[in-house]
């Protein structure tokens, strides 16, 4: 645990939520394909009249000679279309966070939560417009701000707290219960303080660069995949480089000018550090450890790698500079790009998962039924080795479905209800 790098590699951000671009694309493909398969299955096992759309595709209007046994399926979103909706809704999330005057950390955590959630969940399965509110609420908690749900929804002129609460656990599960997100904001502060110690750098230039870099950090890495590919310090340096390339280069140059001394770890062992994972700092006299740590992690051979990585991150951020905020709220853009996808989504979303409140209620009902029959502890049995068929695990038919089916029959069946 000597270096910060080693420490970062222990974090859930690195272990669970860092991917190469290829890996990330593959996961999104897989999520999309799996969602299509499931939704198709669910839709086709429902009577056509009970679907929430009467004409999913043009072919559905064509009379079906075989009757209703194989209803036509809607057109699904492609992975690229899903990605566009996630990005658009990330912008919406940030706007909502601004509206509620949340801190930079909370908004950034919420955006990271939201994008992580939709790596393994499709926007066709769970509604992004709901999940972005859930992400904001849960991010407040994750950052140690515990607002009452009533106050939270009031801020957004909403009335039903259940809509948020119902999705919270789902989100948490989708995050694989890793709720610590590491951000570049403090890194920027530190970089600026360090640059401030160089007498030749003008304070005004530094202040302007910090302001611009912070503006970038508040938007660009959050709405792109930067958090999946880069560490907070790399993101910070990329943002600083966009704000003032000279300052970023200076910082890197100063960091790497260091000439490595011979590696020396012969400090006396203290009894307190006798364990294998005992804190490293106690082994060395404090004044020297900084230099030694630096020597271990800063070889000149790493400099090029670092520079390359920061350049790549810079490219990614430059595609969504803060000025693009206007792009994502531009009516013409929304009409041309987003509205068609929303329409498509209305027809191809998952009938069993889309309504979070109903989904939650069905699961709770099922659990409490089980709890009654198993003397107070719902999953003791399952834990003890009996795995129920999956139907039992997540509850029987959703009440909503049965209800809609009845209503559908009554209202929409042109031949009227059965006699």
């Amino acid at each position, binding site marked *: 645990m000597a270096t910060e790098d080693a420490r970062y590699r222990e974090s859930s951000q690195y272990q669970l939520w860092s991917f190469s671009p290829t890996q990330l694309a593959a996961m999104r493909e897989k999520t999309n394909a799996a969602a299509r398969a499931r939704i198709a299955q669910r839709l086709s*096992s429902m009577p056509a009249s009970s679907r929430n759309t009467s004409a999913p595709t043009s072919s559905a209007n064509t009379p079906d000679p075989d009757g209703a046994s194989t209803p036509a*399926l809607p057109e699904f979103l492609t992975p690229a279309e899903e990605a566009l909706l996630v990005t658009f809704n990330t912008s919406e999330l940030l706007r909502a966070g601004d509206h509620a005057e949340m801190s930079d950390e909370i908004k950034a955590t919420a955006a990271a939560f939201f994008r992580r959630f939709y790596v393994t969940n499709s926007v066709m399965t769970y509604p992004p417009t709901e999940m972005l509110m859930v992400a904001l609420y*849960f991010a407040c908690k994750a950052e140690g701000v515990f607002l009452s749900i009533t106050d939270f929804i009031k801020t957004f002129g909403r009335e039903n707290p259940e809509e948020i609460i119902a999705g919270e656990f789902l989100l948490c599960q989708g995050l694989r219960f890793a709720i610590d997100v590491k951000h570049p904001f403090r890194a920027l502060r530190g970089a600026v303080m360090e640059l401030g110690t160089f007498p030749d750098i003008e304070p005004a230039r530094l202040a302007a660069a910090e302001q611009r870099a912070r503006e970038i950090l508040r938007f660009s890495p959050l709405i792109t995949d930067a958090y999946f590919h880069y560490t907070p310090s790399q993101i910070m340096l990329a943002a600083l480089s966009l704000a003032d390339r000279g300052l970023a280069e200076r910082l890197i140059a100063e960091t790497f000018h260091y000439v490595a001394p011979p590696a020396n770890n012969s400090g006396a062992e203290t009894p307190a550090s006798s364990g294998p*994972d005992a804190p490293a700092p106690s082994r060395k006299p*404090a004044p020297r450890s900084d230099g030694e740590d630096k020597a271990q992690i800063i070889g000149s051979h790493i400099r090029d790698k670092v520079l390359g990585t920061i350049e790549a991150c810079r490219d990614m951020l430059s595609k969504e500079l803060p000025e693009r905020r206007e792009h994502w709220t531009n009516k013409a853009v929304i009409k041309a790009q987003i509205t068609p996808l929303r329409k498509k989504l209305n027809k191809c979303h998952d009938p069993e998962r889309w309504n979070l409140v109903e989904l939650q209620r069905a699961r709770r009902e099922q659990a409490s039924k089980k709890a009654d029959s198993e003397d107070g502890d719902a999953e003791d049995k399952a834990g003890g080795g009996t795995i129920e068929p999956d139907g039992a695990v997540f509850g029987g038919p959703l009440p909503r*479905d049965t209800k809609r089916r009845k209503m559908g029959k009554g209202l929409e069946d042109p031949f009227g209800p059965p006699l």
Partner: protein
Amino acid sequence: MAVSPLVAPTTDALQSSSRPTSSSLKRQASAVPSSNGNGTPNLPSTRAAGSGGMTLDPIEQLNEDEKRKYIKGKKLGEGTYANVYLGHARHDPSVLVAIKKIKVLQQTYRDGMAPDAVRELKYLRELHHPNIISLLSVFSSKDQNLNLVLEYLPLGDLEMLIRDVDRVRYGAGDIKAWMGMLTRAVWFCHDNFVLHRDIKPNNLLIAADGEVKLADFGLARSFADPGRRMTANVITRWYRPPELLFGARHYGGAVDIWSVGMVFAELIIRAPFLAGNTEVEQIALICKQIGTPTEDNWPGVTQLREYTVPSEVVPVWGKEAYMGRFGAVGPDGVDLLVRTVALDPKKRITAREMLEHRWWRTEPKPTRKEDLPRKSSGGEEKMGADLRRRNGLLEDESNSRGSKVARKLDFGQAK
């Protein structure tokens, strides 16, 4: 690869899946489309949504897989906040775990997942250290409760050992070993910018091999940015430092160090060192036993919002004053103790400085953990009781403004 939506695998199709399973696992569903190994044609209509229930999404599948790794056994403890169960790994029954089932739906908290659960999850998920309780897994149960799978710590906690004066005997080497493990845990938290905020003997659990593990992160938080306010109402009273009793809203790792000092003292005298029944009493005890905080020994202390001390000012006691009662750990041990209970948090020793203190290197050497005194029974129940507890925020202190107003009146009369 295009997956035809109509041939999504069904539960039945997976009954002879490749997973080496016992019969109880046969009905496991997989929602991830996979090549259909057994050649059975899948009919999409076999699982009508209305007839059987819901198939699992990948994320739900992941959760099921996680849950299936453990088998839950008997209940070790039950509380309003959480139940604790003994459990073991499915693949190896000799691997024991404790499963802490946090009740997400609580009567008293209507805003979804409770703060304790969020904090515990956040920090235990990130902190990996031999002296911090390991979070092995997390899964949700059907009733939407959060299950934390923790390493099993069967030998109870430090409080148990401290209190059992008749049957448990220990000496300076043992105290040094326990203190070393505690200090490393706290150093690690602080080095990761985490404040524990509830250090006390019954949050220090003991593993089968004698290793001490800091547990219960339900009150933990990250270091705040400068200027951001935190609550002063943390840390169980007997272990709470004067700055928090005075209502400080900006503080750092020093709050935990005070608690470490209190645990240290308690290990030596085998009774809580400063056991006030109220916050008023707690401050009075600190003033009497350690010294009265004043502008002289703690510049700025009188500016703290709730600063009130008994009128009779007691000078800060020197090292010699502690030797009589705490001399068992030797002059170096006493020196370390005195540094942990410095009134001014700025002058209090840090966790890292503690680890560099000379006491660790003087005789006696810390006892090897295998040779540390232990109790033969009651540890399991103790773990159950410790883990199910709600932490540090005490009911009677939640209305802190009221109690602090009352305190001033008490001091007025206490002459």
